């Protein structure tokens, strides 16, 4: 069939029904239909690498997964991993020439969340239906310490953060403040020290005339930034609240002594 070779090209993501589900977010798991498949460490690393890297030639796999082993030994480890997978999950991995690829009937959560985030970032106005994926998901294989995971984990994190920021802006532009706030809060949950999300949260509180909420969130962020990094919020962020900060300071000075209201501006 002519489509066969096409499906071996990188990033072929069919994910047919009745196939495998590979989960790499939060923790590793492999399911077939509804049955959990137990996967030992070696095959786990092979599957994760192919899902993250795309189709990979054998020498690249050997060098990445078993960097400290001599070649015959590494080839043996790869064979063992392949054999175990073949036994427990046949046709999950396929050889093409000297390369290995993930079969087309595997649905990988990393791929669907990446696609969802990219579609938000690429299209100037779309709010896709599958945006919920950006909310629930955790980090990429959080307890793995391999170099090839560390940077991909951080990359995915940034991708999600920026997709959520854009989503929040898009909702805000449509006047859907509650949805915008929710996206911004999720962004802030993943990256609590980022100003981008905090700016949006404060803007949404202000858009809803909730000055007290805005000020409260500003204070929370300022304290967190001070405690964690020893720095102040940027001028732009402070400027967003300046009319009210001044009012509060004035109110503060005239308040009875010991009212305990902290000064917002030094």
């Amino acid at each position: 069939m002519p489509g066969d070779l096409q499906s071996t090209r990188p990033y072929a993501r069919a994910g047919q029904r009745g196939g495998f589900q590979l989960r790499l977010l939060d923790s590793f798991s492999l399911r077939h239909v509804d049955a959990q498949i137990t996967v030992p460490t070696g095959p786990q690393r092979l599957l994760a690498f192919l899902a993250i890297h795309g189709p990979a030639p054998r020498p690249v796999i050997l060098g990445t997964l078993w960097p400290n082993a001599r070649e015959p030994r590494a080839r043996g480890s790869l064979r063992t991993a392949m054999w175990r997978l073949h036994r427990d999950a046949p046709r999950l991995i396929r050889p093409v020439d000297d390369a290995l690829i993930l079969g087309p009937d595997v649905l990988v959560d990393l791929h669907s969340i990446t696609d969802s985030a990219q579609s938000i970032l690429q299209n100037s106005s779309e709010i896709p239906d599958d945006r919920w994926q950006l909310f629930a998901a955790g980090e990429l294989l959080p307890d793995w310490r391999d170099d090839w995971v560390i940077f991909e984990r951080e990359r995915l994190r940034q991708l999600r953060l920026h997709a959520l920021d854009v989503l929040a802006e898009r909702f805000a532009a449509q006047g859907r403040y509650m949805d915008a706030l929710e996206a911004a809060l999720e962004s802030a949950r993943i990256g609590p020290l980022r100003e981008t999300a905090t700016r949006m949260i404060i803007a949404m509180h202000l858009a809803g005339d909730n000055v007290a909420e805005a000020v409260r969130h500003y204070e929370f962020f300022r304290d967190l930034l001070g405690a964690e990094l020893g720095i102040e919020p940027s001028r732009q962020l402070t400027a967003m609240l300046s009319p009210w900060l001044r009012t509060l300071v004035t109110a503060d000075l005239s308040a009875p002594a010991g009212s305990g209201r902290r000064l917002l501006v030094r």
Partner: protein
Amino acid sequence: MTVSASGFQVRILNGFELSVMGRVVLIKAGPQRLIAFLTLYGRPHPRSYVAGILWPNVASDRANANLRASIWRLPAQCRPLIKLADGYIRLADGVTVDYLDAKALAHRLLDDPESRDADLSRGARLELSSELLPACYDEWVLIERERFRQLRVHALEVQCERLTRVGRYAEAIDAGFAAVCAEPLRESSHRVLISAHLAEGNTSEARRQYALFRQVLGNELGIEPSDDLRDLTAHACDRHP
């Protein structure tokens, strides 16, 4: 990638693929190496020279025989791809090559600060994240692969900087990570990525990336990032309202 007048299209990024008039043609390993070599080294070469490079471990008459066999083993529709004249061998004119497109893209980014907007797209990032014949460990590929890696990582850094300048931070950070993933220990890639975080006003993310780089650099090489990078990350913290 547009199909050229000759109808031949050779891909040598992320693996070898030959198509004729838009249809993929499967060919054997020997002819693959020959076509890949001629694609990579564009000029006409003496046949015996090419045979010696592709089959370095056999006697020269054997190598020449292998070369002849590789040419004859090509499917008939692919024969016009290779031109032979006066003992020289070269690739036909007008063949579309993905590697040349990617190189042109990288040079536009490096040489022309105003190059077109499409050069900043996600498609361009994917092109610049491609590796030259990753499965091939022949000497003649290794050096070109390394050279191309340097070129594309530089271009990705420029893309990151340009996107940062126009405030497209999400894409800038994507480009920065593409560079970092290609060369995890390269400081300049981490620098443009950190600068993108700072430009977006996210000091915490800049620090996080710095810490990550420092950790990996320490693990792999046992050294520290440069003072410049440390200062870049640290000075951003001196902001006061």
